[in-house]
């Protein structure tokens, strides 16, 4: 291509008239009004928004009452946020002793800090694991007390947001490794191991979580030797772990099945052996593949913790329900549920953003 005759006159390219491609108007035309059906849909959507949004804003902000001493003083057309203000402490921490408020508050802070720290890739590995271990020990000590001059608080009174976080976070931490073992076991060459894993997964998956919780809270004590008691919270926690593990195991198995045989053979031919092959080659790839369904399941498990309400544990939702029974503040359940929904949502939204970050991180190697 070096000897193109540049002196030769080339015909000038004829400029094609360019449509307007920038500016808000062009954007609107390209995205919202680019065809007749789209135009109709856009107009219909605009109409619905116009009908729906102003009343919501009026209820939530304009007509809302932010300060009131009791439910009666709060009656009006708008939301009664005064109720949340009054009950905030109870919704978040339930019946935990009032004078010890700082302890559950600190627990929530620890959880949030741990979760945020997990986002930092530089910390991944032993340091993060150590951080989590220390964090969870601190959570246990803060909730339980009895040492370091803190008064003992029985698990019955661990309510509200800390309970929700303990059940879900501790649940996932234990359920996930168990799920990996179950998934590996289900693909094992050993018939006995395989049978146990298949049996476990199918049995637990076939039963509603509520049933598992009931069994843990009502039936289990019947089977234990007399005099031996296991705390109700611990039983619920165990039920959660066992239940979540069965679901997660199937997701992990899906990832395992997607790993080509060549990867196993390459690892084998290097003499890695089963466990190193699994840990270094198979699992990192398999888990990266199933991040979306895993996080989906984590989100589900997080919200499922609200079912402990049924066996008499006061998690975030349970404490909210309890707050609603105050005779002084009758009839503000919408405000209460909107508030807890916002709390649940912020945690779930964070999880979903986190999973997107992880996916980007793990897909680096696949881009050419």
């Amino acid at each position, binding site marked *: 291509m070096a000897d193109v005759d540049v002196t030769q006159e080339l015909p000038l390219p004829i400029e094609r008239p360019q449509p307007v491609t920038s500016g808000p108007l062009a954007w609107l035309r390209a995205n919202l009004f680019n065809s007749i059906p789209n135009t109709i849909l856009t107009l219909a959507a605009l109409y619905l928004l116009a009908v729906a949004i102003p009343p919501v804003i009026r209820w939530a902000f304009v007509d809302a009452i932010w300060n009131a001493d009791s439910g009666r003083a709060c009656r009006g057309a708008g939301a009664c946020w005064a109720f949340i203000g009054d009950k905030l402490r109870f919704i978040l921490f339930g019946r935990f002793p009032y004078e010890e408020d700082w302890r559950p508050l600190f627990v929530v802070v620890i959880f949030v800090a741990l979760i945020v720290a997990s986002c930092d890739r530089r910390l991944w590995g032993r340091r993060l694991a150590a951080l989590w271990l220390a964090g969870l020990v601190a959570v246990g000590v803060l909730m339980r007390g009895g040492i370091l001059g803190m008064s003992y608080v029985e698990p019955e009174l661990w309510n509200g947001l800390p309970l929700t976080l303990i059940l879900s976070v501790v649940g996932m931490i234990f359920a996930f490794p168990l799920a990996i073992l179950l998934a590996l076991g289900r693909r094992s060459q050993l018939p006995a191991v395989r049978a146990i894993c298949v049996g476990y997964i199918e049995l637990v998956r076939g039963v509603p979580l509520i049933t598992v919780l009931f069994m843990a809270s009502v039936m289990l004590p019947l089977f234990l030797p007399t005099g031996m008691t296991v705390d109700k919270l611990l039983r619920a926690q165990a039920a959660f772990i066992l239940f979540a593990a069965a679901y997660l195991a199937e997701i992990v198995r899906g990832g395992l099945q997607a790993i*080509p045989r*060549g*990867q196993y*053979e*390459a*690892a*084998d*031919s*290097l*003499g*890695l*052996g089963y466990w*190193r092959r699994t840990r*270094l*080659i198979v699992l*990192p*790839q398999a888990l*990266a593949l199933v991040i979306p369904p895993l996080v989906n399941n984590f989100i589900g498990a997080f919200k499922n913790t609200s079912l402990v309400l049924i066996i008499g544990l006061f998690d975030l939702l349970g404490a909210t329900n309890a707050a609603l029974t105050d005779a002084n503040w009758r009839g503000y359940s919408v405000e209460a549920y909107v508030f807890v929904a916002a709390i649940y949502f912020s945690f779930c939204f964070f999880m979903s953003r986190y999973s997107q970050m992880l996916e980007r991180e*793990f897909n*680096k*190697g*696949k*881009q*050419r």
Partner: protein
Amino acid sequence: MTDTAIETQPGEPIIELRHVDKWFGDFHVLRDINLEVRKGERVVVCGPSGSGKSTMIRCINRLEEHQQGQIIVAGIELTADVKKIETIRREVGMVFQQFNLFPHLTVLENLTLAPIWVRKLPRREAEETARLYLERVRIPEQADKYPGQLSGGQQQRVAIARSLCMKPEIMLFDEPTSALDPEMIKEVLDVMVELAREGMTMVCVTHEMGFARTVADTMVFMDRGEIVERGPPQDFFANPRSDRTKLFLSQILAH
């Protein structure tokens, strides 16, 4: 690649297959296979597809199990004993048709993984060795890329380097150039010829007859699960004895 054959002084037998039989279900893939490979010997296995060549070399590091007969590698007989299998696999490198690099690890990590975890080398030492071998397969600049970012030929060279980092006694090649675009075959074969020059014991399943002529001490021709013919390449190419070998050679060398 040059046409002058590489000289060797074969030593002790390092791979021995004695009366090996294998079935896939009812299909008899390997029939009474007897093969001896000496230290430093280069064996090229050829034959039509489905003849059991790949299965045979995959039996040598027990990626496939044989059902009858004996396979002895570096003095150890292959049985169901996992410890022995892992010992043998440490000494036997394998290069696959589909490269089978670990896509979630960088090239350097692919190379250092087994030395660090299996040979227990310190990371720094493993990385030094890895860079040395990347140099030798002529892609030192790709160390920090991921396998997916390399061409097929580069990936296969990384795969060869990955095996070499374990300092194996024996290298097995299972159709290493069959999945490559034609223009990349040479770069891989060049690396293999160099390896042969250095005296590596090699068993290669390949259709590259030019390569076979250059490096092979022994040609092995397989058909329908049997070793039909074997011998030094001069004889093998010039005067094949069996009709099946003649037919195969005429088909593969026709153009």
